[in-house]
């Protein structure tokens, strides 16, 4: 048996250990991109733009008509488009490789209250799924644990690194809380109807949360031994140095979550999911609470709902004045994260401008994650994390990347998948 295990282990190791793509080298020479259309991510578009970056930072973003010396390597961007790297928040990239292979699953720890569990140390930079993000322009992500009531603590990373430590943009940025559901499903296996009913334990579950946070605050006010790791992990949430992401869909839950945060003096609240956020838009605005909106490519949650409801939610929230980013949790979320630009593109068919749609996966998300001082838009002083695309990056027909840079490093757009593509294209060429 042991032998078998070892054998299996070896197989896995060999299957997963193709270090597909070597991270790009540190930027040593300035780079200039001239003549492209620059989509800044902050709502602005510059035709015939001039973009320069050095030592990993943007040094110039403006019109190519500007009289300024071009430094370093010059890339001709004529007919091309430049975008800031897309950011995938609330993602499990690098935590799971193959859903059905339990040994590769590292996203969901046992226990209900796990604020101390840190995703960053499990983040696998060698993941074949992670590398497949880059050719579509997804260059950064928030790596987020799943499960339980409090899933754990996330970190923001860039997607081209040797090790998790090198990937970090912001370590331990937020704690993630799954708000109690307003509904519970009938136990169909006991013959109950397979429908959702009011969750009778809802009040109790919310009360438990209030109590848990009150206890942690009391503990942190006067830390004594024995130490309590979960409570300590919540300290940042209550003193405003860490954000609290509440994963919640329904109107009642969102309202209660906001009131809960107020009662606990939690100032940095983000709503994740937000299917019914539009119903509490005033409350969100009054309290300055942003929403990481569920994937636009999803089905309405009720038979009666508009077929395009998930497509147009972002438009409704943006038009109402809420700060919105897009997230992609759900079925097959990791491999699907590379479709983030198209989640944004869809919002354009349902009312947003392309520039607004772009912000949903760049600057807005950076603001929500609290990393907009470094990333999220093409602005001087920020990381040179950007890519050059042959056309409109939000449309799959034209999302074809020429080059991508992360912190100025020229990163590879090759993957396990492109390698197979090449190998097998060769096969048929030779036959």
């Amino acid at each position, binding site marked *: 048996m042991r032998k078998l295990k070892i054998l299996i282990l070896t197989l896995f190791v060999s299957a997963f250990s193709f270090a597909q793509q070597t991270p790009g080298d540190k930027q040593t020479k300035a780079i200039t991109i001239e003549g492209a259309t620059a989509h800044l991510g902050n709502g602005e578009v510059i035709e015939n733009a001039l973009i320069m970056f050095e030592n990993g930072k943007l040094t110039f973003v403006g019109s190519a008509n500007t009289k300024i010396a071009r430094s370093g390597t010059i890339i001709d961007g004529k007919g091309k488009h430049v975008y800031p790297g897309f950011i995938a928040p609330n993602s499990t990239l690098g935590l799971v490789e193959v859903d059905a292979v339990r040994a590769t699953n590292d996203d969901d720890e046992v226990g209900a209250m796990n604020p101390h569990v840190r995703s960053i140390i499990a983040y696998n930079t060698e993941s074949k799924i992670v590398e497949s993000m880059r050719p579509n322009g997804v260059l950064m992500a928030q790596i987020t644990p799943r499960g339980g009531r409090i899933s754990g603590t996330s970190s923001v990373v860039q997607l081209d690194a040797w090790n998790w430590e090198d990937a970090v943009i912001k370590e331990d940025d937020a704690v993630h809380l799954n708000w109690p559901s307003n509904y519970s499903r009938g136990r169909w296996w006991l013959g109950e109807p*397979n*429908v959702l009913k009011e969750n009778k334990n809802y009040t109790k579950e919310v009360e438990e949360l209030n109590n848990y946070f009150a206890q942690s605050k009391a503990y942190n006010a006067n830390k004594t031994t024995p130490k309590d790791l979960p409570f300590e992990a919540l300290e940042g949430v209550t003193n405003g140095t860490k954000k609290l992401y509440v994963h919640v869909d329904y109107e009642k839950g969102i309202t209660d979550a906001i009131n809960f945060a107020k009662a606990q003096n939690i100032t940095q609240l983000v709503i994740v999911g937000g299917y019914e956020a539009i119903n509490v838009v005033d409350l969100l605005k009054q309290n300055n609470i942003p929403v990481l909106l569920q994937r636009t490519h999803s089905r309405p949650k009720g038979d009666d709902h508009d077929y395009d409801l998930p497509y147009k939610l972002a438009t409704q929230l943006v038009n109402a004045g809420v700060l919105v980013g897009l997230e992609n949790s759900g079925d097959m979320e990791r491999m699907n994260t590379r479709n983030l630009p198209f989640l944004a593109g869809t919002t354009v068919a349902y009312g947003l401008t392309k520039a607004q749609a772009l912000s949903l996966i760049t600057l807005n998300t950076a603001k929500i994650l609290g990393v907009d001082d470094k990333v999220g838009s093409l602005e001087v002083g920020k990381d040179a994390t950007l890519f050059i695309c042959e056309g409109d990056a939000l449309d799959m027909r034209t999302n074809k990347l020429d080059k991508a840079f992360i912190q100025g490093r020229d990163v590879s757009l090759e993957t396990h998948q492109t390698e197979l593509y090449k190998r097998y294209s060769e096969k048929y060429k030779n036959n």
Partner: protein
Amino acid sequence: MIKKWAILSLLLCSYLSFAQEYVPKNDGVKTNTSNYTALTNAKIYVTPNQVIDKGTLLIKDGKVVSSGASVTIPKNAVVIDVTGKSIYPSFIDIYTDFGIKKPTSASGDRRSPQYDASREGFYWNDHIRPDQNAIDHFEFDSKKAEELRKAGFGVVNSHIDDGIIQGTGVLVTLAPSGSDATRLLDDRVGQFSGTSKSKTSRQAYPTSLMGVMALLRQVNHDADWYAKGNIKEKDRALEAYIANKNLVQFFDAGKKVNALRFDKLGDQFGIQYVFVGGGDEYELINDIKNTNAKFILPLDFPDAYDMEDPLLAQSVSLEDLKAWNQRPANPKILADNNIQFALTTHKLKEAKTLMPNLLKAIKYGLDKTKALEALTTIPAGIIGKSTELGHLKAGAYANFLITSGDIFDKETTIYQNWVTGIKDELTSMTTKDLRGNYTFNLDNSEYELEISGEIEKLKSKVKTSDKEFGSKISFSDNWMQLTFSTVDSTKKEFIRVVSNITNPKTLNGKVYYPNGNEGTFIATKQVKDEALKDKKDKEDKDKDDEDETPKIYPVTYPNMAYGMESLPQQETLLFKNVTVWTNEADGIVKNTDVLIKNGKIAKIGSNLNERNATVIDGTDKHLTAGIIDEHTHIATESVNEAGHNSTAEVTIEDVLDAEDVDIYRNLAGGVTSAQILHGSANPIGGRSAIIKLKWGEKADNLVYQNSPKFIKFALGENVKQSNWGDNAKTRFPQTRMGVEQVYTDYFQRAREYEALQKSGKPYRKDIELETLVEILNGERFVSCHSYVQSEINMLMKVAEKFDFRINTFTHILEGYKVADKMVAHGVGGSTFSDWWAYKYEVNDAIPFNAPIMHKAGVLVAINSDDAEMSRRLNQEAAKSVKYGDVSEEDAWKFVTLNPAKLLHIDDRVGSIKVGKDADVVLWSDNPLSIYAKAEKTIIEGKVYFDIERDAKLRATINKEKNELTMLMLQAKNKGLKTKPIEKKEKELLHCDSIDHQF
């Protein structure tokens, strides 16, 4: 009291007289009474349609001797004068499990599946139990019998409600005394069937509704084969099934679509089922009528939802709101359509709720005579007992009710329920009706006494002009006791009154004061007040009636959100100046006109004109053939029959769900046709349904006419149960090696079967093998779920060995590795655009798969396998432009013409070509663009989705939901029962989904 006893003993005697005469008697002398009982001066419902206003019912020995206006009463008759009362035949419920203990669940390890039968000497499937006879499990349940008698029932038919075929029923009376010797009327009444498996066995097959249907068909074939003496082994189940063949066949359909499904199945074998309905028959009333079936209707109308919390209430669907509003009209609509139905207490928690629900149905328009028929003559007729049950003609069982009046009036009391001449007194006929307003004087104060409630369960109110007192009244055997508090309520003292009532106009008696003093009590009925009260009552009642005059919302097709009041009609449509993606040699042509007429594409050209055509301006818009999804699981109630490793006998066509809102959502994504595939739970799956998304049509109308025949095969992790957990390790195959052997084995057997068929020798008809023979002969095409190259190649080799070709590899994520071999074999590939990494076997799945296969010469389609993605297949096609630089024209064919070719329907759909079906979509933009929206989706010239009509439908949904919510709130305010809200959230079905109910 003495009189009562006398009658009772007389009755007992008469009962004994028709007991078995050979029973020895040791407790006295043998008595042999043969007296008559005559009930005179009654309004007699001899049948629901034959009513005698003032007549006599003469009975003897448990049967009716005669009934009529002028009946000669023999001298040896006990005469009971029931002037002013009505007599009805008592009710019959032919669908109960009265006296049958609920079967207990099989024990054993719940987690590991059981594939073989537990029983020996019976059919190979434990859920086929025609050998069960209710009589063998029957034990008279006195308590339940009493409950049923109170509700008006005299006879019930009972069966074992367990299994797919459940065996025979037993017909019993509910007589309050006697024994089984006299109560059992017939021990083989009908054979019962249903869609649920037996609790007593954990045998896995069938795991789906389509499996149930296939199994029932095979049982019929096997019974036939057995009857002809071709099976040497003993099979007690088949023997019983053969013996039960001529009995009435009951089927618990439980919903309209199941009645249609099993009626069709029955037709195949000459079986006309009597269906137990679901209350939703009115939604497809014409089809229900065409079944020619009789129905048994439970009256479990849905309660209103508790809509007080708006946040929760909004999650109740329009479908459920409407069901509450419409379902009470179901019996009326069936009656209007001359569909015969009986009523049953089945599904009611208590028998006594039948009558209030029936009154509701009457309020919703059901004719009272029909209602009575449904409880008497029709059930009697269904079980072939019209001579002796359901009426009060001479010779019938003396089963009748004596009531205070119209049995379908809320105020009516049932006094007595006689069963086979044995009386059960439910309410005393001699009890005086005290209800009314009285006045009395005590201590110089004038009091008012208001008595209301039921005759034997009164309620009281005692008050003076300025004060009301707490009071309690009880009344039995004409003695009334009244207790009420004194003026000074702080003392907690009570005044008691007792009165023996002789004439309810004055209540004479004694009063007992708290201090022990006694006095005389006289209360006088206020005649004037009563008149007033009656008037007020009447007004209240009228008002009530007016309030409750039900507004019934129109039935839509389907009867839910986005349903239409009438089905779309074929239109003549002329698209002008549109960019047409022809998928033909012309390619993509701009500024073109397309004429649609008679459901076909009639003309393509410039400056077209057509009288009477609706002109649609296509400037800046794109017109394409409708999207065809080669692989999806929408619009079906079942996906997998997972009980066996081969299930070629099942078909998705049996279980299509035309009311799946995903049909509408797919239309909104430009999809017009789809292959609804069986799942991937087994190497040989079930047969497909190839459908058009004709939203609003019934299931059978979705299926292509002369549909090409398809079946699902599957390879890899799913069929070897890799991800089913550690308990699923017993079914063959558990490896890819085994998968090959499953195919080889089945095809070998199919070939041998075919040889036997052709030899002219008799053979056992096997639905599964016949399906496989079709594959061998190229009459049925295989669409095979596949991932890795080894198994893909294996299946092609197996097919080649048996001299046929695989039609399509679906998913085929490593198709790019064996594209050359696929071309050589001649198989197409229908793949995901970019899915991977969810299982180990998709590690090498790449988004370049479709482009590589395409370039290598494989006919390529892109499919969804997902109700969400299927409504964006245009975007999935566009990914082939991104990954692999496929031309836009070719990419578009991946979701239109190519799947049409793979499905062998390209002679009808898949391109815009004169003569093809007018299945087209008008897009706001380049259809491959993320920015494109479908504006109109047209199938055969009928507009099934229109973005403008959609906006109107949304408004209607909102309006109706709000109105129905208000009606439910009103219902709650009136004190009607409500139930907690329910939110239906349809699960996303994939290849590996298993039916919940199984």
